[in-house]
């Protein structure tokens, strides 16, 4: 009986973090951010070797066959590294949607490619997530029309998975006829969003009902929350290190209560979030009754906390935090992005109220 990572989970964590810290020194983050595609073949291959692309894909389909606890561990590591890599949509929501709502044919055709890093699926669930820029889609038989603006993980996408407001999901190939697909730069240069317009494009219908689509959305929200946890932790670690190093007024600035107490507050805010994320992953994996509620709170609470963390940790760095020089802003922007996608804190709390019968649906 244990609340915490197993030895295997710790090994996974160390392995992925080790790889990322080697693969993504600050200069490399900077280079990839400047390119702005949200995808780098070498990085993606390395992560594929780490098992990241197939983390939740069953072994029979060529995946690693692990669960949501492992997925949040990976997500935190990716956030910590500000990795220009699409995970929440491409490696969690997409395979989950296919596994839950696809037929045997879809599963065997698609999941292996995802696990192998060959298929990269951008995902838009705005029609269900309560975001601005909602998807406007119609599906007539297998013909998809309409537009989306918030495709997660569009970098080098081979396929696009979109959810309709009624819970049907549709998968189309990115280069299919009738599809116009492009990237839009976001404030987080490590992760663009995608836009697409569909004009009667041929789609594969994944219809597991609205509950399945919402469940896929919840999984994505949890992963995004875990990503922001990693980004927040990185900012705190950098703030503490800077406070231990920078001198002003003849002293290490960390010896001033103003700075020291800020660092203490940061840890007081963020550290409990890790347990919330772990528990939500565990509850989701084991189909526990409180999983959806916990995930909604994970997304909203992390959104609130990491915003404060991103400001306060930057403040600890003084003017240097505001420059491009230390690269601290990559994590600031990562946090900015994570807060807004798949539904912000207000939206997730509002759903949590409905879920508990505290507000009318």
């Amino acid at each position: 009986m244990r609340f915490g990572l197993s030895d295997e989970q710790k090994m996974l964590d160390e392995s992925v973090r080790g790889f990322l810290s080697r693969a993504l020194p600050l200069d490399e983050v900077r280079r990839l951010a400047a390119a702005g595609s949200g995808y780098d073949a070498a990085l993606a291959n390395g992560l594929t070797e780490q098992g990241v692309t197939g983390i939740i894909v069953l072994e029979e389909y060529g995946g690693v066959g692990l669960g949501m606890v492992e997925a949040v561990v990976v997500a935190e590591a990716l956030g910590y590294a500000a990795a220009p890599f699409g995970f929440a949509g491409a490696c969690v929501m997409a395979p989950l949607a296919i596994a839950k709502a696809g037929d045997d044919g879809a599963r065997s055709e698609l999941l292996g490619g995802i696990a192998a890093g060959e298929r990269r699926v951008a995902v838009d669930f705005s029609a269900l997530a309560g975001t601005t820029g909602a998807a406007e889609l119609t599906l007539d038989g297998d013909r998809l029309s309409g537009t989306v603006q918030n495709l997660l993980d569009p970098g080098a996408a081979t396929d696009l998975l979109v959810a309709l407001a009624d819970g049907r999901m549709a998968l189309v190939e990115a280069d299919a006829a009738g599809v116009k697909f492009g990237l839009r730069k976001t404030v987080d240069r490590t992760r663009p969003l995608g836009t697409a317009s569909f004009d009667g494009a041929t789609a594969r219908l994944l219809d597991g009902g609205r509950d399945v689509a919402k469940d896929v959305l919840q999984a994505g929200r949890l992963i995004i929350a875990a990503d922001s946890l990693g980004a927040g932790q990185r900012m705190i670690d950098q703030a503490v290190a800077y406070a231990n190093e920078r001198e002003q007024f003849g002293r290490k600035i960390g010896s001033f209560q103003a700075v020291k107490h800020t660092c203490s507050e940061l840890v007081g805010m963020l550290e409990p979030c890790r347990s919330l994320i772990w528990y939500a992953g565990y509850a989701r994996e084991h189909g526990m009754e409180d999983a959806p509620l916990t995930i909604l709170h994970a997304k909203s609470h992390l959104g609130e906390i990491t915003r404060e963390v991103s400001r306060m940790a930057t403040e600890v760095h003084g003017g240097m935090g505001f420059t491009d020089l230390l690269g601290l802003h990559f994590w600031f922007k990562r946090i900015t992005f994570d807060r807004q996608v798949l539904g912000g804190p207000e939206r997730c709390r509002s759903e949590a109220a409905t879920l508990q019968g505290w507000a009318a649906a």
Partner: protein
Amino acid sequence: MDLEYSDRHKALQQELREFAAKEGHRSPKSGGGRKRPDRKTLDWQALLLERGYFARTIPKEYGGYGAEPDVVEAAIIADEFNKAGLYPGIMNQGISMLVPTLLEVGREDQKKQWVETTIRGETIWCQGYSEPGSGSDLAAARTRADLDGDHFVVNGQKIWTSSAHYADMMFLLCRTEPDKPKHEGLSYLLLSMKTPGIEVRPLTTMTGRAEFNETFFTNVRVPASQIVMGRGEGWRVANVTLKYERMLLGDPNKLLYRLSRIRDLMERTAVDGVRMLDLPEYRERLLKLQGEALAWKYHGMRLLTDMANDVDSGVRRLIVKYVGTMMGHRLSSLAVDVLGAAGLSYDPQGEDKDDDEATTWHIDYMYDIGLIIGGGTSQIQKNIIGERGLGLPREPKTQAAAR
């Protein structure tokens, strides 16, 4: 992560439900902690100890149940007691603070002598730490204990001795080595409150109740053997006690219980015919606090796991008191707002009686400020988190202090 119920857990859950059905009527309504437990409470406590629903992991030789630590078992017990509305057992300073301190650093004979009677609720302890001149600066304590033959002779004054007026015993931080540097001159003594020379005067707080005392010592003789660890090691022992006090002050179960009471209150309270729960401005506050409290709940489970596995939780533990007490205040703030104008009524009934709902919440709202301050203020906690938890440099010695 491994939180699934094994067959053993399912059996425990079943056992608890049967216990609640069969023995639940014997539970006292509330046990206080502000007063000496009555007969009914003591009997209930004995029953809980026998069944292992209290002090479950304390070794049998000290009166506990002797079970292996298990986070899920602890959660199941808390949960079933909560659901059935059963009193979960006595929580006082002896049980929450002194017992774990003795188990960690006490002598074998001290554990034998004090743990069992304390967890049974028979021996009541109070804490002799703060002094009027040294609140945050605890190590500056000036209460003296001078060795005279085989006794220490104590002279001085303590403040915030919460249950001193009915306690049997005190754990006391005092200065036995006045010539040594501040932190090295302290010792930690256990003494009977019946020793001649002790005077207890009630101290009224902002709640209007005398929840605390000032305690005066005039030539109070304490056998020298009643020291925990050695002379000059009092600061170390006191920090062990403080560790447990601070855990207690941030207890997530208390906060979750409070949250559910506020939700109930919001269902029952209406403005212009609309339930407060249906007013989005209030509901949003409740939801924000629910998110915080859930994170805190799982953080608490993580800490329990650390403890069961003898892992040092480090900064995770150091944040508990600061974060938990602030959250408590945010919760009681919401409750007070939901009560609104009608709920401004305030009429505390004293220690032995139950207060009405509005009074109870206002007491909590004010007492929470006391908790933010007591046991080391939030400022002190943030020093500790930063220095011990994050390795940030201490404040340099000042020229004046260096003199």
